[in-house]
């Protein structure tokens, strides 16, 4: 077997990892059953491999942690302390790395806290839970766990000062949790927990003002369980003063005045107890009605949502549900937009944000939801500076945390956003980062061509705002010059060396250097196009000369030989701007023979050129004045379906210049004549060689036959034609032959070995 084969077969192995994986799984099962030491090591290795192969398979992660715990439990606490500690550390690390990548995996957070609780104690476990709600603040579940843990800790505290401290801390945490999640339609367990906690403090609900206030807040929030809170409120609200009842009202005086008018009283003191009760009932019933109608409205949207959590297993369902989230957000947004007073505005702002954040839990990888978020905040009431910071945070969450790197829509949006808020420097900096991330480099996978080129054009656009026209043209000129004149590798090296010697005064230079170092063949074409259009736009008499000089200097560069834009520019330039048919013909012939453009592009250039020539017949005739014919280009017929190399002369020439077999032939000829060759002329007629090649395949595609039996003086040759009209007809000479013996030779089929 050759090296090539070896390489192939090893690749083949890599192509089918599934087989090895399943066999490992089977081994692992066996290992667990027999519980032998060897196989448990195997299981351990296997599962480690598996989670690195399938980092999104949560089931695999679960079993990894399961096995890890088994391993830890099997170790003796005292004797194998160090190994045990190492394993615990490993568990911590794995949990953290998994959760930093996917912070919305509730169950993993929970398992993590249990893991830590089991091996490192209560306090550390509470720390984990605290981190969990910091990382995933919209998770009711995690908040409830965290708060429960805090409460347990609180109950366990004996020291009075410490206990009070913890109580205050708990209240702060409860308020925070309500602030973040209170608008969640299903947040009743959280409200209940808070109420339960406050109820346990002090002397019964009737005299517990904290408890009552929380209840009033819950009452005003559209919650699934709204009726329960109303019922409970109406049971105890008469125990509290009118002002306490109006706790949630922004303008309590106005409300009291309303009731004074209603009861035709002058002061509050004039209300009798019965009247007071009537007012309280009326007020809380109104709140209830309001909440009830809200809940009914929300219910149409809430009732259809079935997948509120982030999960890899339900991705398809989540996708299907995302339009429902979108309509929900739209509804909330319209409520916010139509709200006519500050209080309502604030209410709906929070509510909308809550829905958007909730939608972003299952849909956190979908840039459209992030854009929706940006869109909403952008149009909200906050001040410009606040808005900028707020939006920036949203973008950064999306960009650095959630939206996968193969979907850069939101990232480009971020650049546009920075430009909108007049931060070109920041925008440029980020563009350069993104350019590096999407661009090609040897030690990195995944070259995202389109995104990378978009970065290039964005960078050019940002420079456009940063630099003067004159300066930018200069900069581009230098970039192009350095790129082509010193060759790519040299250029990169130079850039690196020069970087160290940089003058600090010139602010743009470092950016230009970074830009240059990440340029590739495709990117330089974008830069060239930008430079040329700039030259043309400035439309000074000298530019025409400059553009033509540019053409002569760089047209043979490999990067430009495949750039459609480059050639389109020059066809337009000579054809439509200067109307110079001689130059146009020169460019077309360069396109035909000296570029690496695909046939379909070459054909359309020929079509364009022909149309232009037809419209400029006087000048075409002038340049061909001596021949008595017009331009051959007028007769080309390339956009034909036929791709016969035998008939299409131009195409044949082009192919023969590029065909590797012919190149090999030329090389081997050149090697034989080593040193003797003086001129640049080709040693072989490439077109003839190509025709020979085609001929040898013509009636046996794939099986070249170069020697066929022939009658060398055959009567079917034109020169041997005998006209039988002549009265005296010659007797044709006897036939002579070539290669007759080859006729019966077996055909050499290309062998597969």
């Amino acid at each position: 077997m050759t090296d090539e084969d070896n390489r192939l077969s090893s690749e083949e192995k890599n192509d089918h990892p599934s087989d090895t994986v399943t066999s490992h799984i089977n081994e692992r099962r066996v290992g667990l059953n027999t519980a032998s030491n060897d196989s448990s090591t195997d299981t351990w290795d296997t599962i480690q491999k598996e989670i690195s192969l399938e980092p999104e398979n949560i089931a695999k992660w679960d079993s990894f942690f399961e096995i890890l715990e088994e391993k830890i439990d099997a170790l003796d606490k005292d004797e194998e302390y160090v190994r045990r500690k190492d394993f615990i550390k490993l568990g911590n690390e794995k949990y953290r790395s998994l959760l930093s990548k996917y912070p919305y995996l509730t169950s993993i957070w929970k398992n993590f806290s249990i893991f830590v609780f089991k091996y490192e104690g209560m306090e550390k476990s509470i720390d984990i839970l605290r981190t969990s709600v910091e990382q995933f603040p919209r998770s009711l579940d995690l908040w409830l766990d965290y708060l429960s843990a805090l409460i347990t800790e609180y109950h366990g505290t004996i020291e009075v000062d410490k206990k009070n401290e913890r109580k205050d801390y708990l209240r702060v945490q409860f308020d925070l949790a309500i602030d973040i999640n209170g608008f969640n339609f299903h947040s009743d367990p959280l409200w209940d927990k808070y109420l339960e906690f406050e109820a346990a403090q002090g002397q019964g609900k009737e005299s517990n003002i904290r408890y009552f206030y929380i209840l009033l807040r819950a009452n005003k929030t559209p919650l699934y369980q709204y009726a329960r809170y109303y019922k409970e409120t109406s049971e105890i609200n008469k125990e509290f003063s009118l002002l306490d009842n109006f706790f949630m009202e922004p303008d309590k005086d106005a409300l009291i005045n309303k009731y004074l008018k209603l009861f035709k009283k002058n002061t509050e003191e004039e209300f009798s107890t019965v009247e007071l009760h009537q007012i309280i009932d009326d007020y809380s019933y109104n709140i209830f009605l309001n909440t009830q109608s809200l809940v009914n409205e929300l219910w149409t949207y809430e009732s259809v949502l079935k997948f509120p959590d982030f999960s890899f297993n339900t991705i398809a369902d989540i996708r299907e549900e995302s339009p429902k989230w979108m309509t929900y957000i739209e509804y909330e947004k319209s409520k916010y937009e139509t709200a006519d007073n500050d209080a309502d505005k604030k209410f709906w702002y929070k509510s909308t944000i809550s829905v958007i954040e909730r939608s972003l839990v299952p849909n956190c990888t979908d840039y459209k939801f992030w854009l929706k978020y940006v869109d909403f905040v952008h149009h909200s009431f906050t001040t410009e500076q606040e808005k900028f910071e707020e939006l920036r945070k949203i973008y950064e969450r999306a960009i650095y945390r959630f939206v996968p790197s193969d979907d850069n829509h939101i990232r480009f949006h971020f650049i546009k956003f920075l430009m909108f808020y007049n931060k070109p420097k920041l925008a440029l900096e980020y563009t350069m980062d993104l350019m590096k991330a999407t661009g090609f480099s040897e030690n990195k996978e995944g070259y995202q061509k389109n995104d990378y080129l978009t970065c290039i054009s964005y960078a050019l656009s940002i420079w456009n705002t940063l630099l003067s026209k004159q300066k930018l043209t200069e900069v581009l000129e230098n970039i192009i010059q350095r790129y082509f004149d010193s060759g790519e590798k040299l250029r990169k090296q130079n850039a690196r060396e020069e970087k160290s010697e940089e003058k600090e005064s010139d602010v743009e230079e470092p950016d230009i250097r970074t830009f240059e170092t990440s340029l590739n063949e495709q990117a330089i074409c974008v830069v060239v196009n930008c430079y040329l259009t700039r030259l043309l736009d400035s439309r000074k008499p000298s530019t025409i000369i400059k553009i033509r000089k540019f053409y002569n200097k760089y047209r043979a560069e490999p990067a430009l030989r495949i750039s459609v834009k480059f050639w389109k520019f020059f066809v337009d330039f000579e054809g439509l701007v200067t109307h110079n048919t001689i130059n146009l013909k020169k460019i077309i012939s360069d396109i035909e023979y000296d570029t690496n453009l695909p046939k379909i592009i070459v054909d359309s250039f020929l079509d364009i050129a022909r149309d232009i020539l037809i419209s400029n017949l006087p000048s075409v005739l002038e340049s061909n004045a001596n021949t008595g014919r017009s331009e051959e280009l007028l007769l080309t017929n390339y956009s034909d379906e036929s791709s016969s190399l035998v008939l299409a002369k131009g195409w044949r020439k082009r192919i023969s210049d590029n065909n590797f077999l012919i190149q090999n032939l030329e090389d081997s000829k050149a090697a034989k004549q080593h040193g003797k060759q003086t001129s640049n002329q080709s040693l072989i007629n490439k077109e003839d060689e190509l025709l020979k090649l085609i001929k040898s395949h013509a009636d046996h595609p794939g099986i070249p036959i170069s020697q066929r039996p022939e009658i060398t003086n055959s009567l079917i040759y034109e020169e041997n034609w005998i006209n039988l009209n002549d009265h005296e007809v010659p007797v044709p000479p006897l036939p002579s032959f070539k290669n007759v013996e080859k006729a019966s030779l077996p055909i050499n089929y290309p062998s597969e070995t």
Partner: protein
Amino acid sequence: MNVIENKEWSQTSKELITDPYNLKKWQKLIKEAENNEGHGINKISSPEEIEVLRQSYRQMLKWYPLLTWYWIRFAEWEFKLDNYQEALSVFEEAIQAMPYSIELWVKYLEFRIKTIGDDLQDILKLFETARRRIGYHFHSHEFYKLYLSFLKNYASVDESFTKKYYVLLRIVIEIPLYHYDYFFKTFFSHISESNISEEVVVNIVPEKELNSMNTKDMKLVSSKLKKIFTDVYITTQYKVYSLFYFEKKITRHYFDVSYISQQELGTWENYIDFMLLNYSFHYVITTFERCLIATANYPRFWIQYADYLINLKMYSSARETLKRGLWVNKNFKLLVKLIDLEIYLQNFSAARDLITSYIKLNKFIPTEIHERLLGLEHLVAPDDIEHMLQIFRELIKETKNDYLFSILLNYPFPDVQIETFMEEFQEQFSSSFVFAKSQLYIYQKLQKDTSNLITHYESKLSPKNFEEFKKYYYLNKEVDLKKLFEQEMKL
């Protein structure tokens, strides 16, 4: 007149006036004329009835000149009706229309032999003309059989025919034919020990080689010749096999209005390539012509054929081919090719005539034709820009073809004049993408502010076209990121 009596025929013929490309109806027309309301046509039919039949064939073949068997049947009718001269002219006309049809040539030559008088040499000439055209046809065995038997049968009238017979046979065995075997058998029987004679030898072996043969020992000569011609057999067989690789894939050899499969079109292309690479000019021509009988409806083979002739600088043949193509294939691409050829040859008035007669006869004129008309007009008075703009104006008004604006940009006219010209049509073409694009281009050339174009066309163009327009707008421009953000945020 009896025409009215043949009601069915009258009805069909009326229908055909509005529907001349309906081959089925033409066939029906012929059938009804032949049927003649059940009486049939024969020598005693009235001249009117015969005229109905004759006109039916004539008209049909005017629309469909490649229907070999209708030509043959038409000629046979005339012959049956004792109209020798008419039959002859039908055949001659048919040969004009289909110079490379084997069936036609064979039938024609049979007819001539059947009616032979003192025109033996004329018939020989005809055979030779036919051989020049269809002699390399893979399926020309019938023709050669006929030719050989003709030479043999009339050798008594013209003594040179004997020699010609052997020479022809000698030629035929070198031509790769489907029935090559038959001719070899004939040839080998002539040189077999039992049949070989002085007559055979002198007509097969050239004089200067006769000396090296011991003509006294015929047995030896026979075996010597057998040895030589076995190699011919091997070579011809090899060639037959390699042609058969293509021939076996060709299923349709005749003209029809139905489609041909892509594979078969591909086979023709490869076959032509193969011929170009391996055989002489006449072989290539025969293959092109054979191909074009079957693929006459496909402009690409006509154009390839013309290109081939143009490459060989055979301009008048190319012109004739294209004209013949235009007779059977009404595709304007052929006309464009022909116009381009005339322009190339600087026959500007011929090019103009082609265009004007096409415009007279056709309702719909493809832009390509107008494009050439404009180019030729420009040539007449290169400096009279107003005149040219007037022609553009009239054409645009008449055709409402927005692509003409794009063509206008190709002309070396001052940009300002083009811009003012375009403004005249601003209203009429505001929903046209090509117009918008052309206007954008001229604005950019004049370095006018283009931003109002984008707002103008946003409401005028269809959303899809506007997207496309925006692409052009930003093509050579730095993207305005700020504006993009505004647009995306719908500010």
